[in-house]
């Protein structure tokens, strides 16, 4: 677009001219250009310069027949009208120039006359401007009238400018510009109308004139900003122009076409600009389509086809630029259904990139046409050579030759041949490639930002081809590589073929043998499109250097690679060939899972087993597949594992015969190795893994033709990806393994197990552990064949119920105590001095321990005891693992063997202690607290002050083993000792008491409180026990178990009721039953008592009675009773009620029971028995 002249690119502006008074010109010019629409000013300082406005008079005989025009449009016509032919001319005079001095007046008149004569013959309007310094005054009416008459103008065309007064100045300037605007409109309308009349009357001699008139009318309309009319006439002009191609004979055909196209280009540009600036995007695009359609076939003769393509490409480029600069968007009113009847346009036609891409395509077409023309012309070019001094003529799109003869310079027309060779020589001066690349790049970037990846890669490919054509192979290769990725991914084999063909040539040119081989092999292995069976492979322009993809070309390419590898120079152009003598070393190709060369070679490796023991043989299958069209002979196949001991080599049988003296790997297997197209070559081999751990097949290396080493990454059949290109082929897919299971689930890696540990780890548990004791677990390591080096025993205690931790998190924060603790390890066998060394490696924590084990030889054993203490009853999982290595070397240290054992150990509470308080027999203190609130203080036992109370402690063995109870004591604190005397009444008589499982031991204590306290702490029960089995154990094995006694309530009873009754009665013999009521208070106590009849007794005395007891005295109620029945009999129930406390006291049933013998019993008892404490029962 930038190539177009300025006057064509911008809309024309009206032109006016002023002559004289140069000092005012800037102001007037500014005023004009600030108008809407602006006007251009052609300012002439004085009247002598006015001649430039004059017409260049053509000496044409008016009577001569009208000459046929020599061209359609004159180049400078538009420029002339925009810069040199004003619509109106204003003569400026100062007021003093026209008034006063008659000489000056005369001068003014003659200037005016001159000006009039200059513009004569044109329609140019005349305006006279008088410049006054002040409004009014100076100028008389006569002067203005005279001047107007002289100038032959209307009064309104005489404008007076007032210079000094700002307001007047603006006003008069406004008037002037308005006058100019009116005159311009009139002028351009008149001019337009004048030319239009000629068209309407068909008053022209040739079709060229018709087009020219259309152009002129349209331009005049543009001056007036009458866009519809301009558009109409431009369209009319271009229509006529298109028709002219076939009819005109004025010029030789080639030049005629060139001229027509040049003119059409201008017309088209004008139309597109008007439409786009008017916002009619759809109209512009539709118009462009029409324009392209009408000219796309007008190529002309083949020698000058390049001119057509250049022109055609320019159309796209310019339109793209126009769309880009006007930044068009798809109008909302347009139907969104692109490409259908509703909306014939497509999305891309709104994108400049689309036009750039096509411009690049056509420019490339031009390059091809030019190459063709140059080659054909260069043969015929001979005598006439290039025509000299050819230059553009005054007409658009025409060229002429300047012919100088002496002083006269003549312009001669050119013949088509001359023109062709001129155009060719001009065209050859330019490097189109870089322009094409620039266009493609523009399109590429734009398409990529639009997300049109395929279009973008097509552009990228276009760039690459141009780089290739320009000889920039490294750039070309880089671009081609980028594009090839997309084609591979989407499986467009034909496009990939073309791409690889270029890449192969690039590699050849860049002397990169490795690239050349890999591109060639990939090409050879490409699937073919069924449709592209035959093709003219000669046409390299359309199919690229590789020709069209056929089976035979694939085979040729493969053969070429083999030839190069074998050093046979098949082709004659040896300079391009690789100098293999310089490259003695072999070429390596690496093929991994994402490599495009997977279609060339694919290695699938599967072990036949899932896991294996070390040193035991197993089978591994190696399968190779190739899609190359010809069979591939493999010299040597090397399979590599991560354990290099397992690597093996297979050498081709034929190869080995020919080179028998060459060193052959030991263990190399000989098999014929020929890889046929699309068939799996399956090989099975035996390997013996030496080490435990993972054994993985890494790669399969195939050596082909001695020089090429293809290293395929091994793939497991189970995870083998599909071939991106071959997966769409309609063919049967063979499986890599014969075994179906292996083919679908085979793995290229195998787990080699550790050798079986030949060491026994024995955990011995003597039974459940008891809380508090130091529980020992003996651990024995017994070697049964392996030597244990740097053995390490790991011990771990875990809560059996899960959770792992042996204490709750909260407890962990609060204290260090664990429910179960690993306390230590005691060595059994290594008592002799080396203990310290062993100790240093021990690490014991509460639930985890590490113990090092000394070196043990086969048959040796070692044991230790683990000491664990339970603080609470719980079940614990006890894990012990032994890790060791077979010898003390560094390498062996990596392969450690492990033996694990676990044991669940129950932790139990050994004894449950319960306690019970008893009151003295038949002595009931009145404990008020018990009466008052029965519910609250129920839990707390109440004891009477200064009375002896019985405490019975019973320890129950809840284990399954007999336990020894060594001591049972109550340990009270210092206060307790003073305030309360606790005496053991009965205890362990011997050294210890053995308690069988689920038996109970009872100890009796007498408690006599000397203080009154609502909550009194008696002390702790302290039991010392041990297992019965541990005979001969020291004091250490005794476990002290402590339990707190509950608090008691001690109070003073106001009344104590004591019943006195003989220990037994005899039937029929009366006895006395006393009830003593002691008032321990300092108050008079009134009591009531009542006796209920009992059928087994008769008694004498009051049933109901009341008594008053003085302070600190005792009242005795006596009844005489005669038993009537024998056996254990209930005495008559007596109820004593304290009036003061409203508390009744009934002795307990056991207290009120007496045994009645039928007759006097005969006892052989010691005397002392009867005198013992009556409380013992």
């Amino acid at each position, binding site marked *: 677009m930038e190539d177009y002249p300025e006057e064509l690119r911008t809309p024309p502006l009206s032109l006016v001219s002023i002559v004289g008074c140069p000092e005012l010109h800037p102001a007037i010019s500014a005023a004009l250009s600030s108008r809407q629409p602006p006007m251009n000013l052609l300012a002439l300082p004085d009247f002598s310069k006015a001649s430039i406005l004059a017409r260049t008079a053509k000496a044409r005989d008016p009577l001569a027949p009208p000459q046929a025009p020599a061209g359609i449009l004159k180049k400078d016509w538009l420029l002339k009208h925009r810069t040199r032919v004003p619509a109106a001319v204003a003569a400026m005079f100062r007021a003093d120039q026209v008034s006063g001095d008659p000489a000056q007046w005369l001068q003014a008149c003659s200037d005016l006359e001159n000006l009039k004569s200059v513009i004569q013959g044109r329609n140019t309007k005349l305006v006279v401007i008088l410049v006054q310094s002040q409004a009014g005054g100076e100028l008389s009416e006569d002067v203005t009238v005279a001047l107007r008459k002289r100038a032959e103008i209307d009064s309104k065309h005489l404008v007076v400018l007032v210079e000094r007064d700002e307001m007047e100045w603006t006003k008069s300037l406004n008037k002037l510009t308005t006058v100019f605007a009116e005159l311009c409109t009139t002028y351009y309308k008149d001019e337009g109308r004048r030319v239009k009349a000629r068209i309407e009357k068909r008053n022209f001699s040739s079709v060229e004139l018709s087009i020219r008139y259309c152009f002129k009318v349209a331009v005049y309309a543009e001056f007036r900003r009458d866009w519809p009319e301009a558009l109409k006439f431009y369209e009319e002009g271009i229509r006529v122009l298109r028709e002219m191609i076939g009819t005109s004979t004025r010029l030789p055909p080639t030049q005629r076409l060139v001229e027509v196209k040049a003119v059409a280009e201008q017309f088209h540009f004008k139309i597109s600009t008007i439409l786009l600036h008017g916002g009619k995007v759809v109209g512009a695009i539709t118009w462009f389509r029409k324009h392209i359609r009408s000219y796309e076939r007008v190529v002309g003769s083949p020698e000058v086809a390049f001119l057509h393509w250049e022109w055609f490409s320019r159309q796209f480029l310019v339109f793209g630029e126009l769309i880009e600069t006007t930044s068009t968007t798809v109008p909302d009113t347009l139907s*969104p259904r692109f490409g*259908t009847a509703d909306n014939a346009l497509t999305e891309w036609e709104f994108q400049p990139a689309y036009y750039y891409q096509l411009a690049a395509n056509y420019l490339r077409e031009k390059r091809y046409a030019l190459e063709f023309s140059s080659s054909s012309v260069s043969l015929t070019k001979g005598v006439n050579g290039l025509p000299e001094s050819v230059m553009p003529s005054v007409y658009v799109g025409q060229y002429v030759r300047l012919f100088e003869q002496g002083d006269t310079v003549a312009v001669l027309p050119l013949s088509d041949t001359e023109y062709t060779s001129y155009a060719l020589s001009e065209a050859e001066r330019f490097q189109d490639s870089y322009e094409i690349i620039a266009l493609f790049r523009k399109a590429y970037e734009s398409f990529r930002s639009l997300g049109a*990846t395929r279009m973008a890669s*097509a552009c990228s490919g276009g760039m690459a081809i141009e780089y290739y054509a320009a000889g920039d192979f490294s750039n070309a290769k880089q671009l081609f590589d980028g594009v090839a990725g997309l084609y591979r991914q989407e*499986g*467009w084999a034909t496009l990939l073929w073309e791409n690889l063909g270029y890449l192969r040539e690039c590699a050849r040119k860049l002397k990169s043998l490795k690239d050349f081989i890999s591109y060639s092999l990939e090409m050879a292995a490409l699937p073919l499109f069924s449709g592209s069976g035959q093709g003219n492979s000669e046409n390299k322009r359309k*199919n*690229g250097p590789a020709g069209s993809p056929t089976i035979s070309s694939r085979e040729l390419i493969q053969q070429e690679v083999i030839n190069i590898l074998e050093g046979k120079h098949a082709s004659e152009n040896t300079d391009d060939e690789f100098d293999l003598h310089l490259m003695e070393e072999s070429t390596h190709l690496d093929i991994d899972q994402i490599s495009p060369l997977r279609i060339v070679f694919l290695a699938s490796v599967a072990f036949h087993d899932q896991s294996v023991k070390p040193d035991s043989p197993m089978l591994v299958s190696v399968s190779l597949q190739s899609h190359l069209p010809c069979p591939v002979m493999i010299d040597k196949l090397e399979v590599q594992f991560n354990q290099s001991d397992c690597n093996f080599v297979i050498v081709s049988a034929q190869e080995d015969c020919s080179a028998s003296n060459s060193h052959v790997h030991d263990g190399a297997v000989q098999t014929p190795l020929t890889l046929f197209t699309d068939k799996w070559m399956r090989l099975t081999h035996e390997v013996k893994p030496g080490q435990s751990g993972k054994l993985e097949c890494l790669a399969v290396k195939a050596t082909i033709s001695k020089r090429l080493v293809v290293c395929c990454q091994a793939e497991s059949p189970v995870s083998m990806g599909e071939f991106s290109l071959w997966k*769409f082929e309609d063919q049967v897919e063979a499986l890599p393994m014969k075994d179906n299971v292996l083919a679908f689930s085979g793995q290229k890696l195998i787990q080699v197990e550790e050798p079986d540990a030949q060491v026994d780890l024995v955990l011995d548990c003597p039974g459940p552990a008891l809380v508090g004791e130091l529980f020992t677990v003996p651990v024995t390591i017994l070697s049964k064949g392996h030597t244990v080096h740097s053995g390490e025993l790991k011990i771990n205690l875990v809560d059996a119920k899960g959770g792992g931790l042996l204490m709750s998190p909260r407890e962990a924060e609060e204290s260090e105590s664990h429910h179960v603790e690993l306390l230590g390890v005691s060595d059994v066998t290594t008592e002799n001095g080396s203990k310290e060394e062993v100790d240093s490696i021990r690490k014991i924590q509460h639930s985890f321990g590490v113990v090092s084990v000394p070196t043990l030889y086969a048959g040796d054993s070692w044991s230790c005891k683990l000491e664990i203490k339970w603080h609470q009853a719980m079940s614990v999982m006890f894990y012990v693992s032994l890790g060791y290595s077979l010898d003390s070397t560094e390498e062996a240290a990596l392969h450690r063997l492990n033996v694990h054992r676990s044991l669940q150990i129950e932790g139990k509470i050994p004894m449950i202690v319960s306690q019970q308080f008893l009151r003295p027999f038949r002595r009931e203190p009145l404990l008020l607290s018990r009466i008052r609130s029965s519910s609250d203080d129920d839990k707390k036992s109440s004891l009477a002050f200064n009375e002896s109370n019985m405490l019975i402690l019973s320890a129950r063995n809840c284990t399954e083993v007999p336990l020894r109870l060594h001591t049972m004591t109550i340990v009270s604190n210092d206060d307790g000792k003073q305030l309360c005397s606790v005496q053991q009444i009965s205890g362990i008589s011997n050294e210890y008491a053995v308690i069988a499982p689920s038996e109970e031991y009872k100890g009796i204590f007498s408690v006599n409180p000397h203080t009154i306290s609502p909550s009194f702490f008696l002390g702790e029960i302290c039991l010392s026990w041990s297992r019965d089995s541990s005979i001969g154990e020291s004091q250490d094995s005794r476990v002290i178990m402590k339990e707190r006694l509950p608090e008691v309530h001690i109070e003073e009873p106001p009344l104590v009721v004591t019943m006195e009754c003989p220990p037994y009665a005899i039937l029929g013999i009366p006895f006395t039953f006393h009830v003593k009521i002691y008032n321990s208070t300092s108050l008079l106590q009134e009591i009531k008592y009542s006796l209920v009849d009992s059928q087994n007794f008769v008694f004498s005395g009051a049933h109901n009675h009341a008594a008053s007891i003085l302070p600190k005295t005792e009242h005795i109620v006596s009844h005489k009773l005669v038993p009537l029945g024998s056996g254990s009999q209930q005495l008559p129930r007596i109820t004593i009620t304290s009036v003061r406390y409203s508390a009744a006291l009934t002795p307990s049933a056991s207290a009120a029971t007496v045994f009645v013998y039928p007759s006097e019993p005969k006892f052989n008892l010691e005397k002392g028995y009867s005198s013992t404490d009556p409380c013992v029962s």
Partner: protein
Amino acid sequence: MIVCVAVVGHQNNPLYLQSFTEADDALKLHHVVHCSLDVIDERVNNPKRNAPALNETFLGLLYPTENYKVYGYLTNTKVKFIMVTTDLDVKDADARNFFRKFHAAYVDAVSNPFHVPGKKIASRSFGARVSTIVKSFGSGTTA
């Protein structure tokens, strides 16, 4: 005249591509068809724009390029049909008609029990049928 027809699979891979020109521009047609996939993507992935055409299989003119016009069609199984023609004025109805017949031929071809879905269509009878459809294009007998 139709110069090329193509069937493009789910991964934008060509399943069938046949050109019908004397000139050796098969490769160019491959390019043209491949590039047109961008327009199909654009139209299919832009449902806002194509809201009224929810069930429309005919995608219309994809883009004009050089002297070709490329038309597209998307089957309900998301297989794309692409047709390249050199005719200047193609009636929508003709194009629709062509695709309808082509679709029928395609359905018959892939219904072959020996055809594996997603693989290239190598059936010769399909090729012959397509040739007939291509020849009858625009001849007015498309009823």
